[in-house]
């Protein structure tokens, strides 16, 4: 189980994440939602250890992550929001490098990389430098890199970004399958429809604070709203979108 306790992070005294606490349970897919700039990616980076929290702590299976960050990172699979990769390496070279950095035995990593490249339809392009990959192809490489070492916890920041429909559907089933097999999955996305279908629970973040943390069905019930989009609009969208649209059109078309 992944638990966040009173996590806060400020940049130059401007708070990005404030007092965030929640838990993500094994066997569940936890959706982490919020508008742009609400602090989703910051939270994700704090969990991975890329950023240090200003206060609060992260626990995995009851143990503070900061105590033994390496052990934690060995059990973590992470797909970052932006597909930053060493683009002078080929797909195969990059994945091999990651496997070796994760200390996977070659006998195990080689067939695994090969299978995953085939399953993600990247096998024909494995010798092509990543700089020549499309956005979707890079996203697939990031996913493979995150899954290679059979992690117990998956942190997925916008994992569907750039993926084609077929791969998106496959990923959705894959996440469900992983959850069934007891993995902890926390993923953020703006595709509320997908979130609604796969997530058992959602956490909604607004201006760095948690404004909702419950199962989608309970939220629907409590708020008496028909779907996640409506819930999200109510909790995290301040503007009246129709009025905003009118204002924008007025500003341009005179």
């Amino acid at each position: 189980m992944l638990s966040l306790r009173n996590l806060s992070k400020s940049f130059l005294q401007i708070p990005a994440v404030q007092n965030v606490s929640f838990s993500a349970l094994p066997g569940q897919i936890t959706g982490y939602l919020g508008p742009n700039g609400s602090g989703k990616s910051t939270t994700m980076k704090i969990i991975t250890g890329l950023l240090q929290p200003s206060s609060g702590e992260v626990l995995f299976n009851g143990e503070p992550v900061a105590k033994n960050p390496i052990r934690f990172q060995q059990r973590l699979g992470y797909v970052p929001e932006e597909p930053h990769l060493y683009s002078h390496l080929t797909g195969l070279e990059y994945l091999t490098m990651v496997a070796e950095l994760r200390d996977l035995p070659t006998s195990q990593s080689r067939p695994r990389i090969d299978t995953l490249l085939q399953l993600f339809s990247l096998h024909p392009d494995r010798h092509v430098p990543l700089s020549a990959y499309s956005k979707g192809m890079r996203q697939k490489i990031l996913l493979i890199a995150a899954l290679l070492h059979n992690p117990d916890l998956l942190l997925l920041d916008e994992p569907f970004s750039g993926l084609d429909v077929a791969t998106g559907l496959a990923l959705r089933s894959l996440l469900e399958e992983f959850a069934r097999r007891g993995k902890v999955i926390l993923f953020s996305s703006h595709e509320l429809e997908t979130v609604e279908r796969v997530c058992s629970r959602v956490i909604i973040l607004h201006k760095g604070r948690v404004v909702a943390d419950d199962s989608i069905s309970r939220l629907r019930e409590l708020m008496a709203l028909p779907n996640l989009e409506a819930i999200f609009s109510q909790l995290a969208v301040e503007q009246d979108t129709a009025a905003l649209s009118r204002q924008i059109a007025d500003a341009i078309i005179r």
Partner: protein
Amino acid sequence: MEKRQFRTLLRLFLFRLIDFDLLSTHAQGDSQRLLGQFASLLIFISLVLSLGTLSISGTQLLNAWNLQHLFIATTMLIVGIFAILSWESTFPAKHDLLILRPLPLQTRTIFAAKISATAAALVLTVVCLHTIPSLIWPFSLHGAPAQKLPALTWLPPLPDTNLDTIAASLQRDVQLPNPEAALAIAVSQRGRSRILTYGAARPDSLFPIGSITKTFTALSLARTALPLHTPLSPQPDSITLLDLATHYSGLPPIPPNAKPDYTADQLAAWLNRRLQRPTEPSFTYSNLGYAALGQFLANRAGLSFPELLTREITTPLQLPDTTLNPTPDQQTRIPQGFNPRWQPVPLLHLEAFAPAGAILSTPTDLLRYLEANLHPPPELAAAIRLAHHPHRPIFGKYRIGLGWIIDTETGIHWHNGAIGGFTSHAFLHPGDNYAAAILFNQSLTPVPFVEQIATHLRQRLSGQPAISLQSIAIPPTTGILHIPRTFLAYWFTMLLAAAFVYCTVLATQGLAAQLLPRGLFLLTAPILQITLLIVLVAGYVLQPAATQATITHAQGSSLLRYSPSYWFLGLLQQLTGSQIMSQLAAKAWLASATVITATAVAYTLSYVNSLKKIVEQPDIPPTRRKLHWTTGSPQWTLVQFTARTLLRSARHRIILAFYLGLGLAITIILMKAPNAPPTLLDGPPPNPWREATTPLIAATIAFTIAWLTGVRIAFSLPIDLRANWIFRLTAVRNPSAIAARSLLALAILPTAALTAIFCFTLWPWREAAAHLTILALATAAAAELSLLQFRKIPFTCSYLPGKSYIHMSVFGALALMWFIVLAARHERDILTNTPILIALLTILAAIALALHTIRKRGAATEVDYEDTDPHQITSLNL
């Protein structure tokens, strides 16, 4: 609207020349700091160069040329490096097009903005480099009177090398520089001879022949039955006669208190305590040595030196007018001698130094002497053979016999002379059977007339094109207009030289892009880029300084005629009103016009043709390689990552290429003329490549250091900071071990392999193995030292400008060169001495091991991904 678009794009492109991606956040996101560092480096270089300018006065034109050439070549080097470094930002790049093409922009606006950004950067570079010297030059050169100098051009070869043809051409071409001049040219070829005289000279005029005397003194030595290794004093390690005759005695050119009337006793007293052979004998031209040699031979024969000369040479060779003490009749036949400004100077009479330069001789006698050297009479044959033997090296292709300087490439034996009011030159070619002497009644000038004629005559006799004997008038550098004219000429030349080199790089890149298929171009572009950089750096370092001789060669058929920096030196002279290098200037005009046109065409074509192609095709062509290997260890994986980055990243390759170019140039300089160590044994000179000589040892050290430095510096520049997250998440530890292994794989092993191939192919295996072991241990120690504070994975940490103190590295490099040569010299001595060699290896191994241990102990397990400034002020928190 277009104007505004242009301004916006100009700003965008100009600032793109700086790579923001490299910067550490601790640089406060400040590209100005990087720019400032670049500008201050240029100004520092310009200040150093300007120091020389202050010492130039208008009369020292030759030195001025040398400095002007240095300025031009340095400008071209800096602009060239700049052009190659900004290779990717001067032509349209894919991301430019992806962003700009959808916008309502005219192609010509993008085009104009790119060109203007490039031009602005170029001008800024040149301005930083030249503001100070451009103000000093016009004043330094101001005030020189009109001068006559040799034309520094060439005449085509004569139809044949017949003596009559040559004599006729000399009659036509030689013009006396002054009505008071007396010049005699005596030539002998295949048994026929001619004596040409000009002005006051006659075939029987007596000229002081200066240092040509030394060949007479040395021949006297060869005539004695004394072994050449006879010591001068009974003490061990005494200077030998051979040391004196070959200038290997270590004695100074003249004693500090010497005057012409220095007597034999004074000489003996001075020499008394200085007869110890130097520990490392080398060639030092010494009049003192020859004075000592002559006096020693005379004393031993119980004669005075003039008597010795008469007995040994002038009598057997029948040279009645070759003497140290001219008779009254002979005295009337001595022409008046003049100083460089054609003012009469009295005849110099030498006492103790007579054996070094006091003989007077006539063209007729001197020619007979040279003919005797070509075809020795039986009684002198053995002595002349001994005198012509190339006993010891001087430098490069030159060796020294007894007195005679021998050009081992052409087979010419020569000596020249200069003594108050007179200059002379004598040469002979025993193989081709010709000889000549030139005698002239003027002291040494910056461009000696006799040397010019001697060179010309040698070229004529060997059937080659000959340097012109014409002189050219250099206008005076006075008048109101001189200063502004020099100022403008200076700026125009520097800007055009900069534009030339910039356009050469662009045209090469642009034409390659047009002529090659896009895929092939992308593959070859990095190779092209690196080749250009290596050529540029090596060319800069290898080019000789601009002297009268090198300029003459540049205007002739030597390789120097292809040197653009010489062309622009010619242009600068032309623009300031002198036509002395007009052939070079013509090349500068033609080359600039060609290259600028080629660039314009390539640039236009690239905008017309390539835009579509660039957008459609990937930046890096797909590879067809199937080979893929794994190492199985995280640390070696990172070494593999490092190797791939260095091989595939243009930016890092360029840095390595720069250092390799520098290393290559130093190596070539050091290996150009490996002198054999002086040997006391007579016999054919050994092949200098076959032994571990100082220059060869130094060359391998320099090359290794350049490679190691290049790789180590490249490590500090990141490839893609944003992709570092993968290393952070996979918890990479122990960065200094990774860097050490990377240095081993990328620098130490490749250089060791190359050095091993070189040494084992050429040298005896024992010396080769010893040198390689020393080099390997020293390199390992240097690598360990360079990584002592290193807490980064190569290519992953951000870069903090200003930390590298580049300007200080100039001094560092000079100190390093000195250290390398010193180390090489000591190593050469040690290589054959087993006990000391073993001791040295043990010490080096101990140092390397100690540094290794220190590095490992102090090694941080954490990796730095953000560069910080260790020199920041630390707050005391009071």
